[in-house]
């Protein structure tokens, strides 16, 4: 009897110790996560508050971390003086057009590979190699070609490059979504006399619409973020946000903090939206180079 009591007491001590360890473990886990959140999101917080500060807040000591009277003056100035509106619109237009074109061109290709194993392993290997291809290898011949054809400083030139550069990525992702699509539904449509192309548009596309949206968002953010092609191939009228933001570095150490931070905020906005919209697909998309410029 006494022994049994002793045993339960020892057991309850063990349980208590185990629970304490677990609580401590949880506290440390969340503490670590909190530190990580501060490190990875802190810069964004500071950039946003900086863009809302008044000019004399920059000189203040102790530094103003959160402005008491946030103002949108820097955004207004960015949009009126620094042609920010123009470049923001350029980025939007170029990214939207490239995204649409990349999807339209890639979907049939992905379909041919997924359904007919078109090109065997060769084509998919080629696409992977193209994904790894450094943009620096393309920019020199493209610049010379574009100069000769008068395509620099045009929407068409940049949209064309972006569309093609993101085809490998889009095709890879779309193959995955198409393979998940049940072939039976499609075959039923084909038996009813539908052509392949019509079956693809009217039967397959609505079902894989979520997949298309994922690819589209990745393509959008990728073209939005791209810098090398943009800085070489655009001119004064067609600059994108990425090119605009680098123009503030010429101010040396006294650069225009207000406008610069406002343009960074506008430049990272799509990234925030996409990170939340695509939570489940982030690993796949990033591994395939969905956001790399």
């Amino acid at each position, binding site marked *: 009897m006494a022994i049994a009591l002793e045993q339960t007491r020892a057991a309850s001590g063990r349980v208590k110790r185990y629970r304490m360890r677990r609580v401590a473990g949880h506290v440390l886990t969340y503490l670590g*996560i909190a530190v990580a959140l501060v490190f990875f999101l802190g810069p964004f917080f500071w950039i946003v508050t900086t863009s809302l500060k008044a000019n004399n807040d920059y000189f203040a*000591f102790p530094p103003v971390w959160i402005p008491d009277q946030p103002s949108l003056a820097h955004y207004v100035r960015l949009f009126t003086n620094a042609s920010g509106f123009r470049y923001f619109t350029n980025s939007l237009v170029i990214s939207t057009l490239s995204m649409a074109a990349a999807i339209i061109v890639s979907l049939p290709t992905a379909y041919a*590979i997924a359904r007919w194993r078109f090109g065997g392993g060769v084509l998919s290997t080629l696409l992977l190699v193209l994904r790894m291809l450094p*943009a620096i290898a393309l920019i020199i011949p493209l610049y010379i070609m574009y100069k000769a054809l008068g395509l620099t400083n045009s929407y068409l030139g940049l949209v064309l490059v972006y569309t093609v550069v993101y085809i490998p990525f889009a095709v890879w992702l779309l193959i995955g979504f198409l393979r998940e699509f049940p072939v039976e539904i499609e075959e039923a449509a084909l038996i009813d006399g539908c052509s*392949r192309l019509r079956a693809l548009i009217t039967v397959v596309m609505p079902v894989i619409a979520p997949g298309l949206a994922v690819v589209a968002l990745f393509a959008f953010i990728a073209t939005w973020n791209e810098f090398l092609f943009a800085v070489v191939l655009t001119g004064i009228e067609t600059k994108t946000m990425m090119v605009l933001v680098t123009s503030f570095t010429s101010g040396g150490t006294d650069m225009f903090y207000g406008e610069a931070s406002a343009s960074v905020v506008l430049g990272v906005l799509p990234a925030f939206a996409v990170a*939340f919209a695509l939570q489940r697909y982030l690993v796949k998309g990033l591994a395939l180079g969905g956001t790399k410029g």
Partner: protein
Amino acid sequence: MPTIALKRKQWEPFAFASPSLFLIALVIVFPLVYAFYLSLRDFDLSVGPGHQFVGLRNYTEALFGDRRFMESVWNTIVIIIPSLAAELLLGLGIALLLNRVIKGRPIITALLAIPAMVSPVMAAMAWRMLFGVKYGAINNLGRQVGILDVYFDWFSTPLLSIVTIVLVEVWHNTPFMMLVLLAGLQSIPQELYESARVDGASPWQGFWSITLPLLKFTMAVGIMIRMIDLTKLFGLIFVLTYGGPGGATETVAFTTYLVGFNDFRMSYASALSYLIVGGVLVLTLAFMWVQRYREARAA
């Protein structure tokens, strides 16, 4: 199971794939061939539009006679190695923490992933301002705490510049490593840990004998992808240092850019870009080999 054999038109697969194949040929393959042609000539826009065949001279110059390019190779390696190590360790640490989080994991993961979604140029700009002399947050915070002067210049020496670049790169891409490793961690069956616990293994032993061995290939894939992308490091350098001080942070991609669009030596820049392509190709083949090995192991 009777399936109805559908008539297959031979031309259809090709017709479906042809638009993208045509565009790839036009915008990727043709320029690459043209760049190779250029790399064998002496086209220099600062001299004039004419150019002639010089054989492999540009390649031999780059490999044996160009200190600047060799230094940029070295700079790239010096940036890549610490970045990869830090990204792997930090990414693994955060992934392990996230794996223990029960509430709100998706939202925390999405928040932590944001830096990886941002353009390198934007990341660099944000950090350039954070590191800014006088108005930067870091110097001002340091002054408030009393450890830094406001006039401390984070880009004053080559070593400090590289440290700063690595820090920004780690901030930018650790989230990617974290996501990859978290996916790997979640594919490890929980029963393995339970049976190890029953056998009296400590969590530490579980980590060394279950987690690490099963995560090895995921890590290899993550590192390979980051390494290939790091050989193209450009936007970060462009904004943070523009290759300075004194060319100490010029990476291969950045040097090639300067040779092409500052010096206008188009042929020589093409040769340099082909050397980079060669390096990336070797890394890509290694990457595909790792993946194939992994698939063979999984099967």
